[in-house]
């Protein structure tokens, strides 16, 4: 066992933390109030090289390992960058660009990865449909081959980044009879005739990521835009999803560290009954719960990340445990933070309020907690 970070990883985390705190976090309160995607924040993420971390340098990335990618998410969350901007970061990098990088041809990679890695283009992924959430294989979007083109019809919903995206990796079925085995992934460019994007949803939290439906109406795309082969889509969707239970969760961990520090500071400063509220055990015990969560969630998230870096097979139980715990308990911790701040915690100007709303997504996005429990119990009962 070895739980230490390399010097390079430690310095990277520190650098990203400082950059996030000084350059990005000050923009987040206003952006969250507006509830709009912030191109200013996006630009700053790109300038720091944070939008293409895991890709090789020749494609405009930084060649970072997965632990380092998680450190970036954690450091930004810890710095006070809002959950929405980090959701945009995650969906762009890990759901869109990673799929193109991992499954694309050389031409596809050269065309898309550098522009996505720099942040010039924004990416998104379309899997979920109005009638196909946890049961993604029941999707109704179809792709019919017509000469050297595919014609897409159907709609996708809850697509993070869609309203601002230049590129979407979309899943559609070439043969619905085949169920999983008919699902195929395509890269679709903004502006393709027949492809349109709905109005952004008003969301409870993670408001700086913008989310909408996307529609395909006789949308013709060149066959060379297919990722991998016909029927490979389900494997592509799954291949990312479990590993994403490290990188996409790391901002939630960071936000919990941020919340813990905000609370520890506030409990020292705030006085009631002639003493700082940290003297009250009810406050202390909430702080302790937050610390335990941070330690346990950190272990769970980096276990998944480091196993990928070390070339080990992913243990699906570990990935699921990670998601259940970080999602469910992370939200409880965000609630503790609001409680410590009392009335102030209910006010927008205190970041614990935003953290609370943002944290709620942890138990929903990328596989709900209930689905995770289903996975774990099925394996246990095998």
């Amino acid at each position, binding site marked *: *066992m070895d739980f230490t970070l390399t010097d390079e990883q430690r310095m990277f985390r520190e650098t990203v933390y400082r950059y996030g705190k000084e350059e990005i976090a000050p923009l987040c309160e206003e952006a969250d109030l507006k509830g709009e995607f912030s191109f200013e924040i996006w630009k700053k993420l790109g300038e720091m090289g944070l939008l293409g971390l895991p890709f090789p340098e020749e494609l405009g990335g930084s060649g970072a390992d997965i632990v380092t990618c998680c450190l970036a998410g954690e450091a930004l969350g810890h710095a006070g960058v809002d959950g929405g901007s980090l959701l945009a970061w995650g969906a762009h990098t890990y759901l869109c660009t990673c799929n193109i990088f991992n499954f694309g041809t050389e031409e596809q990679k050269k065309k898309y990865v550098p522009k996505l890695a720099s942040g010039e283009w924004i990416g998104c992924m379309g899997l979920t449909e109005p009638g196909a959430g946890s049961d993604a294989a029941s999707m109704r979007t179809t792709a019919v081959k017509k000469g050297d083109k595919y014609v897409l019809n159907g709609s996708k919903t809850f697509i993070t980044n869609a309203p601002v995206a230049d590129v979407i990796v979309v899943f559609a079925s070439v043969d619905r009879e085949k169920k999983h085995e008919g699902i195929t992934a395509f890269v679709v460019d903004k502006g393709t005739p027949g492809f349109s994007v709905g109005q952004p949803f008003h969301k409870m939290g993670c408001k700086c990521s913008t989310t909408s439906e996307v529609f395909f109406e006789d949308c013709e795309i060149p066959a060379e835009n297919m990722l991998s082969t016909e029927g490979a889509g389900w494997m592509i969707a799954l291949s990312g999803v479990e590993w994403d239970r490290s990188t996409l969760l790391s901002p939630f961990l960071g936000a919990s560290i941020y919340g813990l520090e905000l609370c520890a500071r506030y409990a020292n400063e705030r006085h009631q009954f002639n003493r700082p509220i940290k003297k009250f055990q009810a406050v202390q015990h909430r702080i*302790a719960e937050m*610390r*335990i969560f941070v330690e346990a969630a950190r272990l769970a998230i980096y276990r998944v990340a480091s196993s990928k870096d*070390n070339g080990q097979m992913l243990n699906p139980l570990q990935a699921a445990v990670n998601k259940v715990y970080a999602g469910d308990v992370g939200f409880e911790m965000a609630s503790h933070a609001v409680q410590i701040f009392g009335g102030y915690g209910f006010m927008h100007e205190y970041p614990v309020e935003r953290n609370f709303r943002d944290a709620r997504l942890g138990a929903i996005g990328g596989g709900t907690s209930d689905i995770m429990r289903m996975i774990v119990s099925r394996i246990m009962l095998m």
Partner: protein
Amino acid sequence: MDYELNDAEKKLQQDASAFCMKEIAPSAQVLDEASKSEVFGTIKENLKKLAGAGLLGTGIEGGSIDLVKYYVAGEEIAKACPATFLSSRASSFMCGGLLNLFGTPEQKERYLTALRNADKVGAVAYTEADAGSDIAGINTLARKEGEVWLLNGVKDIVANAPIADVILVLAYTDKEAGTEKGLSFFVVEKDAAGLSVGEPLETMGLRGLPLAAVTFENCEAKEILGGTPGNAFGQISQILSMGTVGIAALSVGISSACMEKATQKAKNRKAFGRKIGSFQEVGFKLADMFTLNDLSKMLALRAAWGMNMGENEADILGACAKLFASESATKIANWAMQIYAGHGYIKGSDIEKLYRDAKFGEICEVPSEIQRTIIAKNDLDKFA
């Protein structure tokens, strides 16, 4: 970063698991129900067996303690029989660990091999009626009379006392000097004049663990642990801090046993024409058991590794691990009972015993409430 145990640790885990399931587990239910005299005999046999397999005080040698090894072996012993684990721990980790870390060469020579071979059984006496987590409150006093110290006081809950050959006794040698400089551990043998062990205590769970009060009335003690008086506060603080890993091992052992048994039950029992595990109310409980058990294990190993490496906040990680693992164990035992339903409530069922056993982790050696206070103080003080 690497979360895997190394090959030697993995082998230790496999060997300990195989040995304990075969040699120790069969006595767990017996220990729960037997008379105290039978219990003491069986526990001593178990300690001998563990010693024979090299599992008594794994990792405790050469003046230091390898807590990763200790945890790995401990979890397997606890899974087979929680009471045997705690008795082995009182002897080899609490008593043997203190001697190994702080004893004089002569004290180590005299006791360590004997404890490791289970030729002698050790105990540590510190808890009193008015002093548990607040150790400053002990009333046992040591008064120097010529060459010897005379101990007076009552230790009201001492693990292994009924079977112990050597007891480390915490007493004030200089009350004026206060907790940090006035406390000392005395090395006392069971036949010392003025030492009397009370009637065995009956307990709710872990009924195989020998427990009794020990009374000292002008008990003659000649030796202080390490030779110099006034060092016991640091000594007990260190062993209790490292001890969090052992209580985590106890708790994970219990919760692993509960989880495995409940999983089998969920696979085998049918209701409404289906395996009960296929109902989400049951299946999701299993998933929650797995999550808490798995995180407990990771926290414990993380703390153990941090302590081995001398990390700054390893004691806080230990507190987190002990608290999380022990509270998880009571939840998991409770869910296991729900899955067993009536069959888990019947005397003689594994789950009925484990449910009672699980509680101890939350209340022993710094209960959850105090652990939370310790953990919080660390974070709050950073912003003071």
